């Protein structure tokens, strides 16, 4: 099999050619005039620039809340972002609906019209392509905050950036591992090289567009090393295309020592690898802690608040720059405006009270978790680079084929799914099945011991069933799963 795509900047001419095609996908593409858009970006205040808002939070010792904000009707979207900003929000991630994500603009249009007509939102996000630049600028201009589109494809990204959004949360491996069924990683790289290049284009002209990078799959109970390797790969890919500000997302899977270890490790390793590959002027403005494990119903209000408060607490203790907390409606569906306000009021209470104290704390185990994960990530990256002969893009594509990059519960049929994670007695995530992950033997031994310890404690073998129980744990008020779980 011949691999077309490489770790190489798209050249200007080709890029401008590609853009024509992309902008032709839907009539609103015509609203994008790149030079005018750059000028518009340059006219925006710092409070709308994702990187600057994040860096300010870092300097002031604050943890910002990432909400989730996407509803189809323009007026509702504006009302929603206003509610959020009133609740103290300064980063606004705009969820784009699933039809738009998959380029079904026609369907999105119908559903948008129907949502307007019936007053019932028929789309699970904001159909940014259908709304286009002029309307989306109204959203951006309605409040003082930095906007980040979520799940934007190429045309969606064109419109988002031209509308004054200042981050481009799109990463190849995440798209590949979490949203796609048959698409290959190669295709995903092609797409995000485009969006990264677009961000680079703005950046070179002084309008710094950040990108946030997520990993591979938010699969819940699974050690984070594969995701971290993927975050680093995607950063290198973005940096090659000229992106100068990259924000990693980590997953808060519930175990404090692990979650904090990962928050510390990721920016450190990212900087190291970016440096190593010569991307010396790339800024990592902060870390975003993302509350990942399921928040399924049944989740009583009490548990829902506790869960989001706990995530805020861990992020605050880790001094993360931002935290993506779920709302109390997470298990029920897209949150109402009231749920947003209430949930962030709650999380902000924790964040303000904890961060003002400037707490420095050393939690036993953080060091070990950081070291173990560090070794795992390097082993995966080494193998990827070896497979790619130094080219991280090629290496990743081959790595997925070889199961060197793997994950359980991915929707993509191109992912091997030969691995599995479970929790240990204290609720930390451990590998139960390593598949072909190139984890060194002594680290494998470490995981096996932890697994054996829980097996002894519970007097049973850990298996797939237990992995499913563990998946439900936090939503049932526990950190380790229990047999009764459905």
């Amino acid at each position, binding site marked *: 099999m011949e691999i077309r795509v490489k770790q190489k900047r798209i050249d200007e001419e080709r890029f401008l050619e590609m853009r024509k095609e992309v902008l032709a996908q839907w009539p609103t593409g015509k609203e994008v005039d790149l030079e005018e858009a750059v000028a518009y970006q340059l006219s925006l205040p710092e409070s709308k620039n994702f990187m600057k808002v994040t860096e300010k939070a870092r300097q002031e010792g604050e943890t910002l809340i990432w909400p989730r904000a996407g509803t189809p009707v323009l007026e509702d979207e504006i009302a929603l972002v206003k509610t959020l900003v009133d609740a103290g929000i300064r980063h606004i991630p705009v969820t784009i*609906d*699933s*039809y738009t*994500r*998959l380029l*079904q603009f026609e*369907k999105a249009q119908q*559903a948008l019209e129907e949502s307007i007509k019936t007053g*019932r*939102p*028929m*789309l*699970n996000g904001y159909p940014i392509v259908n709304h286009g630049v002029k309307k989306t600028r109204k959203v951006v201009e309605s409040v003082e905050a930095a906007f980040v589109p979520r799940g934007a494809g190429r045309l969606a990204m064109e419109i988002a950036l031209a509308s004054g959004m200042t981050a481009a949360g799109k990463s190849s491996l995440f798209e590949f591992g*979490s*949203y*796609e*069924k048959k698409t290959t990683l190669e295709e995903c790289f092609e797409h995000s090289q485009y969006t990264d290049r677009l961000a680079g284009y703005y950046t070179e002209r002084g309008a710094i567009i950040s990108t946030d990078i997520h990993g591979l799959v938010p*699969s*819940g109970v699974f050690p984070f090393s594969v995701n971290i390797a993927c975050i680093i790969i995607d950063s290198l890919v973005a940096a090659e295309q000229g992106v100068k500000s990259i924000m990693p997302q980590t997953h808060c899977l519930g175990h404090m020592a692990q979650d904090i270890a990962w928050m510390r490790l990721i920016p450190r390793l990212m900087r190291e690898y970016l440096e190593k590959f010569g991307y010396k002027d790339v800024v990592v403005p902060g870390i975003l802690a993302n509350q990942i494990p*399921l928040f*399924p*119903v*049944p989740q009583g209000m009490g548990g829902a608040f506790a869960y989001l408060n706990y995530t805020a607490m861990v992020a605050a203790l880790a001094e993360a720059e931002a935290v993506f907390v779920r709302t109390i*409606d997470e*298990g*029920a*569906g*897209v*949150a*109402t405006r009231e749920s947003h306000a209430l949930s962030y009021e709650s999380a902000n209470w924790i964040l303000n009270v904890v961060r003002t104290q400037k707490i420095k704390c050393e939690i036993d185990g953080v060091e070990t978790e950081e070291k173990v994960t560090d070794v795992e990530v390097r082993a995966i990256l080494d193998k990827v680079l070896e497979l790619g002969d130094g080219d991280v893009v090629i290496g990743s594509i081959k790595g997925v084929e070889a199961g060197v990059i793997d994950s359980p*519960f*991915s*929707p993509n*049929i191109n992912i091997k799914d030969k691995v599995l994670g479970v929790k240990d007695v204290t609720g930390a995530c451990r590998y139960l099945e390593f598949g072909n992950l190139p984890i060194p033997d002594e680290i494998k031994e470490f995981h096996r011991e932890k697994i054996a310890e829980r097996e002894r404690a519970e007097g049973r073998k850990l298996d*797939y069933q237990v992995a*499913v129980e563990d*998946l439900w744990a936090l939503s049932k008020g526990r950190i380790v799963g229990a047999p009764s779980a*459905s």
Partner: protein
Amino acid sequence: MKKQATVITGTVGMDAHVIGTKILSRALKDAGFNVVELGIQVSPEEFTEVAKKTKADAILMTSLYGMAELDLRGFKEKCKQAGLEDLILYIGGVLGVGRQDFKEVEKRFKKLGFERVYPPEANLESVIEDLWNDLRAKGKT
């Protein structure tokens, strides 16, 4: 020995939430069903085609992303056209955008041709229990 029933699973439309359908599929296999696992983003047409081809007894469809209603417009008719009146149809997940009154949701999806509609807290053991009962009632086991 009772005949092994064939069931189809997958998420409908553009839905990428795979975890639920994977867990459901595994539970069905463990319970002895012959499971045709279609994964995510299965179009209504694909569901009916595969049902015909595999002579399936039931489809257990998943949707979490809130847009199932749009995806399933006219689904009942399609089934009829395909001669699948006898096929047992279940659907489960988060079946609308935002907090919903489940009774309302159930009504909406029953109208679309689904025999049973489940919220995300559905207990898989009782789901499988229901399925056995319905199969038996239709003389399929």
